[in-house]
């Protein structure tokens, strides 16, 4: 077990109960460790990408744009400009002579062609090195084309995903406050930090509608430029996920006085709490809202509970490991697993803060491994040590689970299954059940009851 952990990373791993809580985090990834993390650019791209009527132009060599082309399940109810991958595809001569002219031309032609309502221009590592003046080019094009053209300062090497979130929030904040708010209801919210994966935001919107609450802007899933522009007219910001859009909520609070609450739409408690918190916030303005909310939750739960119980029968006592991008999601997951009678024995994230990990340490059981910015060597060791039945992560984590003969549930940006809301809890339970109870684990070498002889030489049977 020990030998797989890098000396430099020992302080990024905590075992609950074995020692008083302490963990270091928000460090840059260790050179030579195969980190599961991406870069600043990735953080910005994740957050802004679902704004569907904006042009998203990646200024850099081709890879950064290729690998982020339509990989997420962020759905749009209208335009789908966000699903195309635009790049300036920098070449040697651009790197030598600078890419500003190319960027300018690219923006002009793309804006003429696609008529977006705004353009976001992402800088990548190389742009940071060759020193292109993104701001100046964006300003010029904005004047020429009459739409907001916003630079996103997301050079990959300038930190990790968190810095990317901040860069994205700063970019978006330039839009906020530029639209007309006169028709907005007093019972209104912005949905922040939801990316409408597999249409999840529509589930949440439906709940809010049933409660009588207007959604001004989706930031950013199924997002529209015009909505973001008038987002400052909403009475409340609902911020999902600890990292991605928190900075925007803070900026909006400071400048426009809009309060925010942190919510999670995953799992029964957190989903209900989110709705009740909204109802509480508005009950002075609408005394009926709480009753409507209670009715909604009751209705949904009555339908959901019996279904969960049937899954629970098979899942009781099974063990789960979680490794996700942001730590906030992990809290909800731990609670969700408890509803299924399962125990979380390892939990970690790419970008958690010290407070996040502290909180995780508080809500998990003794012996749980808590880890920041891990890698395949550690993950496989933890999974084996804890003998888990299911691993929750993203595409990069999937083969680790499967190679170890362990079930897997995709809970990252690339999932195509809605996991939010009460419906999402059902989908989650169904997926967990499907993978944990699959008969295939009876046959995988690590789990099978009796060993199977494996020939050594290629043609052993012939001799």
């Amino acid at each position, binding site marked *: 077990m020990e*030998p797989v952990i*890098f000396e430099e990373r020992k302080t990024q791993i905590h075992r609950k109960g074995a020692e008083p809580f302490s963990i270091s985090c928000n460090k*840059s*990834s*260790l*050179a*030579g*460790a*195969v*980190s599961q993390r*991406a*870069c*600043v*650019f*990735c953080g910005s791209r994740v957050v802004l990408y679902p704004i569907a009527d904006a042009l998203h*132009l990646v200024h*850099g*060599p*081709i*890879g*950064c*744009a*290729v*690998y982020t*082309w*339509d990989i997420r399940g962020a759905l749009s109810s209208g335009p789908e400009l966000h699903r*195309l*991958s635009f*790049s*300036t*595809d*920098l070449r*040697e001569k*651009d*790197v030598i002579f600078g890419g500003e002219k190319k960027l300018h031309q*690219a923006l002009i*032609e*793309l804006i003429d062609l696609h008529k977006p309502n705004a353009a976001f221009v992402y800088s990548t*590592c*190389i742009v940071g*090195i*060759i020193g292109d003046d993104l701001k100046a080019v964006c300003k010029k094009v904005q004047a020429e084309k009459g739409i907001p053209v916003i630079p996103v300062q997301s050079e*990959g*090497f*300038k930190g*990790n995903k968190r810095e990317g979130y901040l860069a994205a929030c700063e970019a978006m904040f330039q839009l906020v406050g530029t639209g007309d708010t006169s028709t907005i209801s007093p019972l209104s919210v912005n949905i922040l930090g939801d990316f409408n994966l597999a249409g999840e935001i529509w589930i949440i919107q439906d709940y809010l509608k049933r409660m009588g609450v207007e959604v001004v802007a989706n930031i950013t899933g199924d997002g529209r430029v015009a909505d973001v522009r008038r987002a400052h007219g909403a009475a409340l910001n609902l911020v999902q996920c600890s990292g991605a859009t928190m900075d925007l909520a803070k900026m909006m609070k400071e400048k426009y006085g809009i309060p925010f609450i942190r919510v999670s739409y995953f799992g029964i408690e957190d989903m209900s709490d989110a709705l009740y918190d909204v109802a509480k916030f508005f009950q002075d303005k609408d005394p009926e809202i709480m009753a409507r909310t209670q009715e909604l939750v009751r209705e949904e739960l009555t339908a959901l509970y019996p279904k969960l119980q049937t899954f629970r029968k098979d899942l009781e006592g099974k063990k789960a490991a979680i490794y996700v991008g942001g730590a906030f999601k992990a809290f909800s997951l731990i609670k969700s697993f408890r509803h299924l009678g399962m125990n979380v024995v390892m939990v970690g994230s790419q970008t958690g803060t010290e407070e996040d990990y502290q909180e995780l340490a508080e809500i998990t059981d003794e012996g749980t491994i808590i880890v920041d910015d891990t890698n*395949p*060597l550690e993950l*496989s060791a933890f999974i*084996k040590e804890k003998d888990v039945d299911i691993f929750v992560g*993203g*595409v*990069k984590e*999937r*083969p*680790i689970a499967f*190679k170890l003969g362990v079930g897997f549930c995709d809970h990252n940006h*690339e999932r195509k299954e809605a996991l939010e809301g009460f419906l999402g809890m059902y989908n989650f339970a169904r997926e967990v059940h499907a993978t944990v109870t699959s008969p295939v684990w009876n046959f995988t*070498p*690590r789990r099978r009851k009796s060993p199977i002889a494996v020939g050594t030489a290629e043609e052993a049977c012939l001799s």
Partner: protein
Amino acid sequence: MKIAEPFVSTTNACKMCTPLGAAMAFKGLEGCVPFLHGSQGCATYMRRYIISHFREPMDIASSSLGEKDAVYGGKANLMQGLLNVIGKYKAPAVGIATTCLTETIGDDVPTILHEFRKECPADLNGEMPALIHCSTPSYGGSHMEGFHAAVRAMVAQLADPETATHRGINIFSGFVSPEDIRHLQDVFAHFGLPATLLPDYSETLDGPALEDYQNIPGGGTPLDAVRAMPGAGASIEFGRTIKPERSAGTVLRDKYGVPLHSLGLPIGLRESDALFTTLETLAGCSAPRRYALERGQLLDAMVDGHKYVAGKKAIIYGEEDLVVGLTSFLSEIGIKPVLVASGGESGLLAEAVAAVTGEFSGDPPLVRDGVDFYQIVAEAEALEPDLVVGNSKGYRELARARNIPLIRVGFPIHDRFGSQRVLHLGYRGALSLYDLIVNALIEKKQEDSPIGYGYI
């Protein structure tokens, strides 16, 4: 014919970046950990991309450069990163590729590696792995340039004429599927020709279920086999668009006098014939009966199915060598390739396509290199294709938008299962592609028909 305007920007690129190709090639060397010298993001993105095609672990280490390193150079991170990865993975080889960032800041990797070899053996208990390096700025080409650069680097940096006991054949098969590699291995075995196939990721990227997690998956071309390459009787290299200065076979020919047979990717009848003829010459015997049978079965199928495919028009896209092979095959069976497109820019595509289509009458296909999917889609407008042949990336805007079938071949295939097991090469590969194509066309006809024939 309308030619899509040249755009300044790229929309939906029909290529990937250079280090991805290098990482793939390094994955085909036994015990080798691919290592990207650059910032963390690139390595993570490529891992994710490759994992979703192969559904296998793909560890790519990174020197994880941060802001300071970008300014002062990445030497310290590269050395530390190597120590870490070697220490933990106990890898006998590390394949180091640069990224755009480290190329632009001008890190001199060969010098850094030289110092590493001098300074670090003590930290590694004297166990210095083979360190192979290639320079892969993405603004200098696509993933294919990276792939070839890494293969060439492995050969150039490992080849050791002193230990060259190998007397077989070297084979550089290019960017093909694990199933293709396995098929080639079978072919050589049946010919009784000992062969060193580089790279061989047939097991490292399509591994069996095992008792335990492998930090480094088994399989790959043995290091010693690569070292022994100068002793081979001949080299075979696939690809009609590899420039000599990028080719591994050329290194062995020019430096060690190993005769080089440059062939197209053996896709379809004629390109496979070329391979088998070469093998017959090298082995000094005719092909084993099974291949005569496979060839006969392919021909038989081509006759049985020819009316289903007759005159159908296809758009083919992907890596240059792959599209040349596919174009050759489609032309043979009577499908008209109307557009042959690639994001690559070797400058050799048009000539290569002409070489494989020349003997058939009819309009030659439009050949476009250095294009993206936006341009391909724009061209498709006027061409009215009946099917599309290429990777998953042409699904949404090209195939689905026109309601025509997409035959998924090559890399990446992100929306289907079993991409490792797609066979493209040899008579058998042609036969399996043929079945896919004919069935896709039958299915389309069936679905479009108001009658709903159950018997076609």
